[in-house]
């Protein structure tokens, strides 16, 4: 039996298992932690542009976080009292998702043409108005690009959640590895890869759609 027929057989005999894995993967291991990361990283990114102290502190901390190997981070989290299951997985993915969003929010705002900021201030905008009416809208494309990076990256990281009992498509991959069944590995890896590609394409569309029209025009 070829690998493909084996794979197909497995998929058709275990649809529930695979669908559950996909659902867990998307909702629990990507949507929740990335959503949380957006809620935390965008405001922090804004704060970084306002306060010099935070700038080096937060961006530095997030950078260091990024360099910790994912399995190591997961283990630390398990040991630190989160136990096994979804919780350490969600926390780890959340921590990884923060940096791209934080950094892009920060650079997106910082790279708004200073003469435009100066004009906005010169017209008598308060700092808040300048942020909400000028800096954030103009930084939207860059911030969205950061979110896209985080989201696609999370799909990959999420496959590791299985090692700490976090479920998702990683379960299939780990099972397959343990049992030396390539088709089971494939049943987890293939959807994960497709999911990453699709999500990337979708978010890139969204990015274009949400970019203010005046910014989309040439130059």
């Amino acid at each position, binding site marked *: 039996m070829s690998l493909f027929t084996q794979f197909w057989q497995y998929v058709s005999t275990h649809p529930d298992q695979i669908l559950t894995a996909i659902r867990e993967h998307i909702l629990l291991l990507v949507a929740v932690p990335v959503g949380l990361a957006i809620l935390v990283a965008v405001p922090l990114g804004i704060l970084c542009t306002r306060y010099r102290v935070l700038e080096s502190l937060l961006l530095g901390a997030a950078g260091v976080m990024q360099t910790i190997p994912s399995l190591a981070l997961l283990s630390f989290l398990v040991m630190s009292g989160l136990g096994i299951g979804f919780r350490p997985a969600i926390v780890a993915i959340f921590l990884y998702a923060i940096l791209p969003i934080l950094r892009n929010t920060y650079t997106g705002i910082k790279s708004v*043409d200073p*003469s*435009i900021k*100066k*004009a*906005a*201030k*010169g*017209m*008598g*905008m*308060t700092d808040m*108005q300048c942020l909400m*009416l*000028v800096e954030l*809208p*103009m930084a939207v494309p860059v911030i969205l690009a950061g979110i896209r990076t985080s989201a696609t990256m999370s799909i990959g990281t999420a496959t590791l959640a299985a090692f700490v009992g976090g479920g998702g498509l990683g379960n299939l991959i780990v099972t397959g590895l343990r049992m030396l069944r390539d088709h089971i590995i494939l049943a987890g890896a293939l959807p994960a890869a497709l999911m990453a590609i699709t999500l990337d394409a979708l978010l890139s569309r969204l990015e274009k759609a949400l970019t*203010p*029209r*005046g*910014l989309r*025009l*040439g*130059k």
Partner: protein
Amino acid sequence: MIVFENVTKIYPGGTKAVDGLNLHIRKGELVVLIGPSGCGKTTTLEMINRLEEPTEGTIYVNGNDTSKISVVELRRNIGYVIQNIGLLPHFRISSNIGLVPSLLKWPKQRIDARVRELLEMVGMDPEVYANRYPRELSGGQQQRIGVLRALAAEPEIILMDEPFGALDPVTRENLQDELKKLQARLKKTIVFVTHDMDEALKLGDRVVIMKDGKVVQADTPEMLLRKPADDFVRQFIGRERLAVKADGLTVDDVAIKTPVTAPPHMGLAQATRLMQRKHVDTLMVVDDDGKFVGIASAREIEALKRRPDSLAEVVQKDVATVMQGSSAKQAFEMLFIAKVGVVPVIDGAGRLHGIVTRGSLAEMLYQALWDSNGDGEAAGNSRSNGANGQPPAPPTPLSPAQPPTAPAGPASQ
């Protein structure tokens, strides 16, 4: 209206951008700040709306110490055209122009009406442009919008930082004319920064020349041209000064000081020979006291059938003259509008002091405008070759062809 009192600005890092500045800008006045790059023009401007805070000294707007006014309040009442236009790219043109009014919470209808009014004022059809984005406009149109944005909330004071920089000369000139017209109508207090001396002299009620954060001279364009305070100013005004200085030129500056003259009793044959020898075709007839009698021209002498004995009989006496010390413009108009061939310059006692011809004028203007070694003062005086009259042929590029209608006959002296 705006008063700078001993204002100094030192940037973090130690650059002294403005150094003990004292300046009083009156209501309704258009003051131009000009000077070399980095001399502190933008800094001076931005301290008015507190985009920069002075390190020392006080700035008063309408008698109020600006450091004691709410910064947002202050800025909303001062129009500001930033050095690099700074339109908000994600706002439509209408929202860009209506920005300050909407910050001031004008009702929407009033803002819309104001936007239309302003666009129409600069000849941009609101139907076409109001809904566009800045990037859908040309550079010149964007600069117009930048100016309109500053005018929108009808502020008393407008700050303009090189609003017409980086434009082609024609568009630039058009916008300057527009601004001049606007200013004549609206009478705002405008502080205008530029690099361009022509622009400064054209627009400014007063021009403030700055160097290293200090005012070198603050004066009307007229006074600046007439009495530049020092070499820096002179050099900075440069060639343009001489060009514009034509306003202050007198006939003496452009006259040939030693025209070819002859007494009335000179015989005609002798007079003709004199003209040939000196290569001129008119003679200034002057009596023994040096008083101007009239002009004798070769053409008229030849046209006569009967050959009179002396110049006295052919001299044309009803010649238009100019008084010594009068404006060169007067001679200019006689030469080019009344089409007189030569204009004698006489003093109060009627004595001849020189003549102005198209040739002498052209040469003077050449010196003032294009001859970098020439220093306006010497022009005319030093024309020693002009003193002997220029040869009628071949014509030098400086002696324009005489129109055949010249009533007093061609005079190429």
